[in-house]
């Protein structure tokens, strides 16, 4: 418990730093002299606070959706990015952008979530048809499926001159976050809360279908609940800021190494860890070639792939 409080304090500190990093001069002194009406106050309210809130929400909810995915698929190496979920959400968003460009963002997000649900369900179908012995083959199948869905999306986008948008969705970037353009991400928080409420069910599902049935739970219902959480979170994050690689993989794995897989205990850790990691990577991206920015997906890609490599190498092949 004290460690969790310490982690939360670090994440809050990162959030505060995030509020004050940027080209426009926002500092305590300038805020005090200018008040809310002055330029620093406006920048804070319109840009910095929304950006920081978006970082925290995206980080926590993507990490949680990775955790939920790992429990229901019973594989350490799955997350929305390795199961075709993100690519399917992007395809859905593309389709709705072409056929119903006038729809409100909320409705477009819902379509993206439905596609994400369908894509992930397809992934689970494939897994059931091809029983895999090796733990690493499961995410490979997902990455292949994601590749196919992504290629279909790219083809459609190419024919409809939407390659630019497609690229933006695939590349997570928080520089465009402004007040009024990130609020959908509060759905991510709802996903986290739901995951916490149903934590015991997901842990039981993580023990396998037979154990789940023995304990009187409907395995299918738990799977569907998990899929809905993962799909909505993935769609919301994709539509709002673009996909963030590795996050859902690394944070839950590190937490599992440290305190195990009982979700009742790990959900707060994963949420705080995810938020902290995204905040840190975004701050690095903003500082490394100041005053310009590097998108978070690039920073996360570098940091994440190194950490992922480490996790892969310490897991003996074929381990359960």
């Amino acid at each position, binding site marked *: 418990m004290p460690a969790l409080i310490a982690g939360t304090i670090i994440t809050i500190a990162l959030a505060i730093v995030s509020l004050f990093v940027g080209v426009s001069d926002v500092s305590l002194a300038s805020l005090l002299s200018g008040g809310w009406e002055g330029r620093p106050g406006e920048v804070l309210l319109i840009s910095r606070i929304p950006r920081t809130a978006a970082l925290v929400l995206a980080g926590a909810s993507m990490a949680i959706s990775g955790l939920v995915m790992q429990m229901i698929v019973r594989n350490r190496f799955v997350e929305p990015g390795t199961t075709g979920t993100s690519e399917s959400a992007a395809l859905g968003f593309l389709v709705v952008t072409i056929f119903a460009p006038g729809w409100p963002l909320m409705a477009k997000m819902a379509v993206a979530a439905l596609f994400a649900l369908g894509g992930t369900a397809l992934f689970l179908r494939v897994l059931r048809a091809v029983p895999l012995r090796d733990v690493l083959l499961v995410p490979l199948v997902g990455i292949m499926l994601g590749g196919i869905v992504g290629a279909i999306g790219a083809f459609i986008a190419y024919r409809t001159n939407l390659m630019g948008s497609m690229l933006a969705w695939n590349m997570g970037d928080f520089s465009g976050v402004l007040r009024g353009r990130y609020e959908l991400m509060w759905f991510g928080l709802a996903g986290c809360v739901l995951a916490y409420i149903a934590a015991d069910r997901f842990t039981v599902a993580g023990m396998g279908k037979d*154990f789940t049935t023995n304990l009187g739970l409907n395995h299918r219902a738990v799977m569907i609940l998990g899929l809905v959480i993962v799909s909505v979170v993935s769609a919301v994050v994709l539509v709002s800021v673009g996909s963030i690689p590795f996050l859902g993989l690394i944070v839950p794995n590190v937490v599992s190494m440290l305190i*195990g897989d009982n979700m009742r205990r790990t959900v707060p850790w994963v949420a705080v860890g995810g938020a902290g990691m995204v905040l840190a990577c975004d701050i690095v991206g903003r500082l490394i070639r100041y005053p310009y920015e590097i998108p978070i997906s690039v920073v996360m890609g570098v940091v994440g792939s190194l950490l992922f490599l480490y996790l892969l190498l310490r897991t003996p092949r074929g381990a359960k």
Partner: protein
Amino acid sequence: MIITNQVTKNYGTSCVVDGVTLELPQGGVTSIIGPNGAGKSTLLSMVSRLMAMDKGSVTIGGLDVTKAKSDELAKKLSILRQDNHMTARLTVHDLVSFGRYPHSKGRLNIEDKAHIDRAIKYLDLEPLSGRFLDELSGGQRQRAFVAMVLAQDTDYVLLDEPLNNLDMKHAMGMMKLMRQAADDLGKTVVLVLHDINFASWYSDHIVAMKLGKVAAQGSVKDIIRPDVLNPIYEMEINVHEIGGQLISVYYG
């Protein structure tokens, strides 16, 4: 009482369990024996609703297992299969606590905690209770799974080869525990066993299966006989009475 009526399971064209009709008595220890491929585990899986049956019906204590609510059944019946691949990293204590899930739905009260502590103690797991399952030996893990099933505290306890991975001492301990659960707590214990001598020593009732059918059933002295066992296992089995128990000798 567990009643199966014409229970059948096919895999493709081969019939694994072929119209099994059984009445397993209330209370006591029943062992299901038979050679590999006899359909013992499949039958147990269908009786415990883990696997759908193609034909037939099963009632446990008056509840139809395919129609009754799963969470109600979970308070009456517990099942542990063999080969439990656990990917989740849980501690022994966490795992055993989840055995209370059907009763507590995640909120453990004092009674739940007492059941958990007792189950951990019964299976000699106290020193390991804070350890993660992936840090345990196969036998320790098997005991942790059985502790979880005991914590579930159901009238009917079904175990598929519970002696897997256990050394002689713990195998004997496990069988004594099953005997105790039946005698002291009035539970109905159904086991799939490979070791016919354990079955002979500890059971009240034995069901022998072969090729998906019940080949013979009855009390120990009805089943542990050369003329019954030899055709079932297709080998020479001699039975000797040692210390009042029927012991089979089949080593060469």
